[in-house]
């Protein structure tokens, strides 16, 4: 994303900023940036219906510059498209005030944003991150097991599941061994074909030039030997079909161990020492290790790790998330709250922690680490000093309904 023009005043952080999205990922940033009640100005094509004096109607499609006051946003992860709906906020010859319009933000087409309540620190942070010109890491990963492969792409801010391949592999049976081998072969063939379709190795000329500086690393992870076998298969296929781009890819393939063929074991894969060394500088690796640290503290159960909105608010109130190791982990999903007040609340929390000298980490809700945080209620904190029973008052609110005493489970 390029910041074409910024008129954000330093005094009250108000004013518009004009942005030019260039990457599909920029849509994700835009999604995080745009809030209900913000003003968005972009090119749009709208069908204008006019009624002549005689009552005949005619309609035509016109390209207009529309300014809308956002009511809702809709982000299509797989396609990387952002649809912003809202009411027209600036009248023109063709569209009356208050008319509804949905703007589809497009790549390489500038749009202008004006935050309704001025640019808060989180918004500015998003803006800064979005306009970070540094070339971003991208990693393709295949998390697989026997008969299942999840092909996903990990970018700086998102983990996108591109395709899930499922092929029934017969289990080994007495006398039916080749059924299993055939099944595995078929599975590998399907997985490779699907992967190649997404990787686009041959690529268009432009694309391959753009990627020439670094080949996109490919990560294969699986429990057992599936990933190794798959790599062997890929090598074999590359040689057999004399597929040069594929052969070039083989050396850059990383094989890792995951405990399950499911996507959420990616976090475990990314935390493995072998990968950490290679991916240490990337945001997702940082996020993952941070979450791991939090989990470790939580397991230690020494009262220094708390999760959940209420507990974290309380901990911040008590000044436990401050200078000297206090970390607030917050999912950016919270800042996308449809209610402005809700967002304000979280922004205020972030700002307070910053004031107190604590560290704030905004985790992308599209990464595995973000998903783990989401399970914990989207927000968690590592405290500087132990606090016990942050959840106690809460308990008193509960009625003691769950007293149905069952047999011991185990």
């Amino acid at each position, binding site marked *: 994303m390029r910041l074409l023009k910024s008129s954000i005043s330093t005094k009250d952080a108000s004013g518009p900023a004009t942005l030019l999205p260039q990457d599909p990922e920029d849509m994700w940033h835009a999604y995080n940036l745009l809030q209900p009640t913000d003003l968005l100005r972009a090119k749009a094509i709208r069908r204008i219906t006019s009624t002549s004096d005689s009552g005949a109607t005619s309609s035509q499609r016109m390209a207009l510059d529309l300014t809308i006051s956002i009511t809702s946003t809709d982000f299509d992860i797989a396609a990387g498209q952002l649809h912003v709906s809202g009411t027209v906020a600036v009248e023109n010859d063709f569209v009356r005030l208050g008319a509804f319009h949905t703007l589809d933000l497009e790549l390489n087409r500038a749009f202008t944003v004006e935050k309704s309540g001025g640019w808060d620190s989180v918004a500015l942070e998003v803006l800064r991150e979005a306009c970070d010109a540094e070339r971003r890491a991208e990693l393709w990963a295949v998390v697989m097991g026997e008969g299942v492969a999840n092909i996903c792409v990990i970018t700086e801010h998102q983990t996108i599941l591109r395709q899930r391949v499922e092929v*029934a592999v017969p289990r080994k*049976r007495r006398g039916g061994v080749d059924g299993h081998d055939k099944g595995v072969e078929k599975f590998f063939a399907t997985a490779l074909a699907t992967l190649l379709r997404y990787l686009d190795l041959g690529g268009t000329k432009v694309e391959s030039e753009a990627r020439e500086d670094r080949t996109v690393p490919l990560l294969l992870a699986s429990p*057992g030997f599936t990933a190794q076998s798959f790599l062997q298969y890929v090598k074999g296929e590359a040689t057999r079909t004399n597929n040069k781009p594929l052969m070039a890819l083989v050396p850059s393939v990383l094989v890792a161990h995951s405990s*399950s063929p499911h996507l959420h074991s990616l976090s475990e894969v990314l935390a493995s020492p072998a990968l950490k060394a290679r991916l240490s500088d990337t945001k997702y690796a940082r996020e993952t290790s941070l979450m791991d640290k939090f989990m470790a503290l939580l397991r230690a159960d020494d009262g220094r790790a708390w999760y959940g909105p209420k507990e974290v608010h309380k901990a911040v109130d008590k000044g436990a998330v401050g200078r000297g190791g206090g970390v607030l982990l917050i999912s950016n999903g919270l800042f996308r709250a449809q209610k402005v007040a809700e967002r304000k609340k979280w922004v205020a929390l972030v700002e307070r922690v910053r004031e107190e000298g604590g560290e704030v980490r905004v985790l992308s809700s599209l990464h595995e680490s973000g998903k*783990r945080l989401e399970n*914990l209620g989207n927000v968690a904190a590592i405290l500087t000093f132990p606090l016990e029973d942050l959840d106690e008052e809460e308990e008193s609110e509960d009625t003691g309904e769950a007293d149905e005493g069952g047999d011991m489970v185990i």
Partner: protein
Amino acid sequence: MPPKSGFQRAKTVAYEDDDGYSDDEYYEDEPGGDALADISAEQMRLGTIKVKEALSSTIQPSDAEIQEALWHYYFDVGKSVTYLKNKLEPTRSEAPAQTKKPKATSRFDQAAKVANTTVKNAPGKQIPSLSPFARTQRPLHRYPCSYSPIVLDSSFSSAEYFFWDTPWCNVPPSRLGEITIQPRYPRGGLLGGSSKPSKLAALAAARKKKQEEAKQKPNTNDTKSNIETDQAVALLDKLNVKGKDDSSPSAQHSDSKDPKMNKISQRKYPNRKNSNIPLSLEPEVEEAAGAEPSPALDLPDLRSDPSDFASILCATHNTETERHGPEDFPLTYNSFRGFNPDPFAKPSPDDIVLRAQGKSAIGKTAKNSQPKNANGDSLSQSVSKLSVEESPQTPKVKSKNLNVVEEFEKSNMKRMANFVVIGHVDHGKSTLMGRLLYDLKVVDQRSIDKLRKEAETIGKSSFALAWVMDQTSEERSRGVTVDIATNYFETDKTRFTILDAPGHKDFIPNMIAGASQADFAVLVIDAGTNSFESGLKGQTKEHALLVRSLGVQRLIVAINKMDTVSWSQSRFEEITNQMTAFLTTASFSPKTITFIPCAGLTGENVARKVEDTNAAWYHGETLIQALDSSEPAKRNIEKPLRLTIGDVFRGGILNPVSISGRIDAGSLQAGDTILCMPSAETATVKSLEVENEPVDWAVAGQIATLHLADIDPIHLRLGDIVCTPQSPVKLVKSFGCKILAFEHVMPMGVDVFRGRLQAEGKVKELGALLGKASGEVVKKKPRIVKPGEVARVVVELERELPLEAGVRVVLREGGNTVAAGLIEG
């Protein structure tokens, strides 16, 4: 008459455009050459032939006369013929018709003719006079009556005489025809498959049809009437397209031909057009049947009927055209090879056959052809009959309607037991089981020798016994069991099913699948120094906890590799004590645990008593005896059917879809209709197998193989539940369960295991901590559940799954078993 169809018009235009030369240009060029150029000479020669043919029977002008006439008429055969006729036999009535005909030639035909045949090198002046309107004005029926029936039997020989010097003339016309017609039939396969199988299918269908005819007379009438209606429709279609015929060159060419052939050709054209379209849509069988040059058809008659038309085109005309597409047209010098300006003008071989069939069907002359034509009908009829009579109510497999519960009680079957063999990796589970099977003569000496030899060749001779269980190439090359191996053996009292589980950490999902089918477990422990200790930290512990939480009560601890510690009693007791302590904390009852020292590789104390003097201290039972003394588990035969699919495979040619799995509850018999969840697809049980033996029924506790019908294997996935349609399993998106935590449990993503089922999910909510013994709520909404604690949690699944109350699940995360749970209602 309707104007030309858009298609034809477009075609005409395309032809005119594509050929770089327009008619006019051509004509301008033509008369320019005073001396006969090569082309002109050729034209002259061909023209002469044509004229001769046209006149051959009645008038015999000299070549010189013909050539002169042609020269004067700029190679216009028609005019020349007229001229000659007038000159030599002025009384002929068809002469005016002859002159009239060329006028009617369409622009397209003219172009094509000129370009390709050039015999009738029509003067340019003719073309302008031909507006499409004028063309369409001319009624069709004039055709047949406008020509006198000149049957020229001698035409062939005369043609040959004239063509004696051209290479293509000496080829017998019949052969030429064959060469080009032939390829059309195999190409019928373009619509899907070669013509051969469909030929067979067609014959089969024909036979079937006959049989049906024999059975059901009224039906035959139906098919006949069907055929007749088909014919009627075809005729109607013909009428509709007659207009097109007018302009078709076939009509033009057949000027002086016998009307029979002419008629045929006229009828053929529309017939082809209309028959072609349905052909592509109709089932292959019929297509092939239609396209077949069956000897039963009176096709030869049609072919052998030589006509003027045929003689004009030298009998090879249409076939030549088929070979040389319109792409040849611009090359005028190609023309003498007999290019047909309109390749569709002549009936295609398909049409000839179809027509012949139709004819014979109507005339009832050829009996064979009737079922042939009716193939499609009969096939579809028989199919529809089948579906109406049989499909909904009675399945293909007749159920014997046994009362399986009674049968089971009557059968006094031997006790049956499934046991899972568990333990840390490399503790010798597979080898122990291989030894067991070998000693019980389930595996014969020869196979063991073979395995031993194979194992030695890759330098792993000690794996030979394990290879009885480990059969895939991957397992053998890596020396690790990957998946459950199932095997059977029988003692005097009991029939056993072995489920040999993999010990490796990564394959715990497979181990869970095996353990969930087991009645009891054999925990194999390596007695070797350090091996036991490392195992206790690893999968010995995890497996033991897992089988316990999956509901296995009875455990036989086989302390293996005793030979490596020279049957040391102290080692045995040390391990026994440690394991007892551990297992009781894992809530196994000490009464249900048996410890057996043994050596899998040598086979001591497996099936036979140990003879080693060091082991004199041991007087207990052998492994087999211990297995035999185990109490069989209770079966839930009376409950509704529940079967967890453990494998989906192709059971052979006769059984394309087979599943296997343990019947958790209820009973099954061949012919039953089952419901597979979560796909909610029904299937019919074709046949049943238990322990590789076909049976009529199977009951809970057995691991059955079901050969299914009426289902696509895509609806069957590992871990799916098979139940009866009467009492289906409910699908749930989230469930509450009581868990025993093995690791810290907090709200997090987990894998949910239930038998073969492995699903993504997450612990959504920690409800309460429960007292371990009392089950009372100790703490509400805990932040984290520590290992060993019992809690009530809510688990949310990624997709809906068939999970019922009372089902035991295992929650794993990051390669560790986090908790085992029991689903609450």
